[in-house]
């Protein structure tokens, strides 16, 4: 079997359907498991009480918002350099999910900030850059929507995504750059996490669930994009008749 054949929309289309189902099922299982750990197993925080439990949603969403931007830019760049249609379609499919994750991170963060910091919104570096990330997603989708020729839309938005990539590391390292209200990262790759094990497990399981969900939703969306853009190609009608 030639692995590369799946870079063609025609072969990817049926594969995406199978994969989407698998990832949806995984997402459901992991969400139930993660929420169970989060609400029943993980202990109450000694300082923040119960309100810390929002991290089981907030932190995975914040992670995903940044990761999706990177993945989206990666596929956009591949589409720009290698001139492959499917890569650009993937980038296009990822953007709404990324924007949703950014929104969830901001929203849950506001709910958590009110009882713990005493303010719904604080203009510190990390919150601000997350907000800018939301604006970047919106700009990306707006540019895409307003260019009618899909190939030009692919390439123009790829350039925009790459320009915006500079912003994602700013978000991640802003905690170290600016000495602000937002706490330092609780999980880091260099030192052991300063969290109880069950809290960490819950958070990681939820993060995995968010990964699965994002992949599944993007696959469904990429199928719709393929349907829209390849509507004139003969194979789509054939496969629709078959499946």
């Amino acid at each position, binding site marked *: 079997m030639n692995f590369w054949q799946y870079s063609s929309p025609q072969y990817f289309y049926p594969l995406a359907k199978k994969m989407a189902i698998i990832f949806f099922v995984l997402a459901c299982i992991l969400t139930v498991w993660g929420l169970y750990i989060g609400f029943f197993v993980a202990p109450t*925080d*000694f300082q923040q009480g119960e309100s810390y439990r929002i991290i089981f949603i907030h932190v995975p969403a914040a992670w995903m918002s940044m990761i999706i931007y990177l993945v989206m830019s990666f596929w956009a760049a591949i589409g720009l350099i290698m001139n492959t249609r499917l890569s650009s379609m993937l980038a296009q499919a990822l953007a709404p999910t990324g924007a949703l994750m950014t929104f969830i991170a901001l929203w849950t963060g506001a709910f958590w900030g009110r009882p713990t910091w005493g303010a719904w919104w604080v203009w*510190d570096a990390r919150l601000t850059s997350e907000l800018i990330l939301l604006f970047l997603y919106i700009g990306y989708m707006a540019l895409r929507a307003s260019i009618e020729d899909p190939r030009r839309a692919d390439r123009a938005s790829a350039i925009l995504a790459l320009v915006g990539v500079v912003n994602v590391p700013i978000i991640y390292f802003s905690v170290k750059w600016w*000495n602000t*209200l937002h*706490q*330092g990262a609780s999980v880091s790759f260099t030192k052991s996490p300063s969290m109880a094990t069950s809290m960490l497990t819950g958070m990681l399981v939820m993060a995995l669930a968010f990964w699965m969900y994002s992949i599944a939703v993007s696959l469904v969306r990429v199928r719709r994009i393929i349907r829209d853009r390849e509507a004139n190609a003969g194979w789509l009608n054939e496969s629709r008749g078959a499946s």
Partner: protein
Amino acid sequence: MKPRYKRLILVVVALALLTLGATFVLKAFRSNLVFFYTPTEVLAGQVPDGQAFRIGGMVQEGSVGRKEDGVTVRFEVTDTIENVPVQFIGILPDLFQEGKGVVAQGRINAEGIFLADQVLAKHDENYMPPEAAEALERARKIKMDKQ
């Protein structure tokens, strides 16, 4: 001039600019972008005159008290060297505790009391269950007793 040389010159110029940019970024990292002042800095007069600013530190143990009107809170912010009295009217955030971090925004009056418009709790990076926190606390006490 051949197109190849032109491109080479442009690449060299761009790389030189990027290197220069990187050095400025490094320089920016090393300089201190201040978010709040410590009580020591406040008492040493390093704060802007007549301007609103932020003061940060720990809430001094045993310093929190309310006035007779029931809404005015007074406490002292300390960096373990100096203390600054703070007065605040309003609801304190849940995480506000004696001995914990706090950031207050406002201005200092003629008597040297900091009149806060907003009080923000600054929590640390540790999430742990109460038992673990107690264990840590006990360990610290034992260590101090030994000394």
